């Protein structure tokens, strides 16, 4: 009985979480260019309860909007670790996936989820606002079913992530 209620609490919490996703205001790469249209009057992300918030403490989603170079990665990790659980990461565009057009650049991190756990990727360069919104909808489904557990994975595999981060950042 007790487990049941705990389960129910989790369901309710997830239901609330998916309806109010605050993303951190951090334009890590050029994918951020398609965020203003998504936020503003034409696509109006706020319909889904998504809103940009300023500091790492307030936000739920970290958007890695495009490529990450080494200098940014350090800040992204700081920001990610400052965020409060539950927190979700969305990798934006092909650069976050595999380096994209910068596959041969010395400055760019090739694969995002070696360093921080990504819950979702959006393919494309750049992803269109429709794609972004569809990704958010998908994330909501994942949260609802409890599958968006990147923050748990990060805690579980902290050694792995730290090792990878250390290799790059030194």
């Amino acid at each position, binding site marked *: 009985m007790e487990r049941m209620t705990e389960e129910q609490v989790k369901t309710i919490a997830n239901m609330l979480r998916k309806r109010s996703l605050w993303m951190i205001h951090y334009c890590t*790469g050029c994918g951020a260019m398609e965020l203003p249209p998504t936020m*503003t009057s034409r696509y109006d992300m706020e319909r889904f309860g998504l809103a940009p918030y300023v*500091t790492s403490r307030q936000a739920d989603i970290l958007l890695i909007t495009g490529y990450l170079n080494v200098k*940014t990665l350090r*800040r992204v990790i700081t920001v990610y670790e400052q965020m409060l659980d539950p927190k979700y990461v969305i990798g934006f565009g092909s650069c976050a996936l595999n380096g994209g*057009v910068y596959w041969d650049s010395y*400055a760019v991190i090739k694969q995002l989820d070696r360093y921080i756990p990504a819950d979702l990727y959006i393919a494309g360069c750049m992803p269109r606002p429709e794609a972004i919104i569809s990704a958010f909808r998908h994330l909501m489904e994942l949260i609802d079913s409890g599958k968006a557990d990147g923050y748990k994975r990060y805690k579980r595999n902290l050694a792995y992530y730290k090792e990878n981060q250390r290799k790059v950042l030194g």
Partner: protein
Amino acid sequence: MNKSYELFIGPNHPGIPGNFSLKIELEGDTVVSAKGDPGYLHRAFEKAMEGRYYIQNLALIPRICVPEPDINEAAYAMAVEDLMGVEIPERAKYIRTIVLELARVANYTMWLGGLAGTLGLYTLAQWSIGDRDYALDLFSDICGARVYHMYIWPGGVRRDLTPGWEDSVLSYIRYLKNRLIDYDNIFLKNVMFKYRTKGIAVVTKEQAIEWGATGPILKAAGVAQDVRKDDPYAAYEYLDFEIPTLTDGDSWSRAMIRRWELENSLNMIEQAIKKMPKKGPVCAKMPNPLKGYVPEGETYAKVESARGEHGFYMVSDGTGKPYRVAVRGASHTHMFTIAEKVLVGQRLADVSHTLVSLDICPPEIDR
């Protein structure tokens, strides 16, 4: 006694227009020193371009400046054409002009939203960025992409306009001209806007010239200089337009200059559509791009971006890949020679507004 303290504007801060950091030292709420901290967006473009064929580089260059990618394509195409000695067809020139001006319009509407945002007027930001989106739809019509078009390429443009595109452009211009009246009423004619921007971040004529400012900063300081007029490219020499100037050089003047330029661009697009040859090739005959042969030599091609002079310096050693490429973005100058000096003595409340007013575009700084 610890008089001053440090504050970071960026990278994770709404007051910075992109992934860039500004480290400011403040005393009370007055800036004592400001130091830009670039490198968060460094992707080694110039190095990467040396390793790729000329045609491959086309995919890379629009990403140098995200808000207005087309200027990169134009400058790159012009540099390659210059090296190869190719003259592009008349119709391509006009199409390039229309696309470039449309990109400028898209940039300025977004910039206007950004400026209003830093001053706390989010309504205009919502309106103008929403209106910009219709311009992106027009791009999407001709090349299938909203942001990175890769439409202008060496020899002309990639493909001809879709039928009826000109009409959609004209109707968009009519729409935007009506909207501009609304923008003026809510923002540019607003008393509070004048109150906040008059006398802020002044760059005088002498300073602007000495510090190497270009674009709206220079025009706002009273120097009528514009690459489109002084060294015309594409079809600008056939178009009739004025270069607006103001004398104060403050944030208000820059906003006004951009507002006029926005209207200027709309008029230029109308003119270009009217004067454009209705038929004809849109691309000169070019050798096979994969075996692309560019003769030895070096060149500097420049265009007028929304922020100022944007140029490509390119050296070719006769192989399929460029030997050396250097990009001159206007933002770099504006950030490190102008903003760092202008910010000193400003109030904290004006910092992010000053950055937007000088139109700092971080990806252009880092490359």
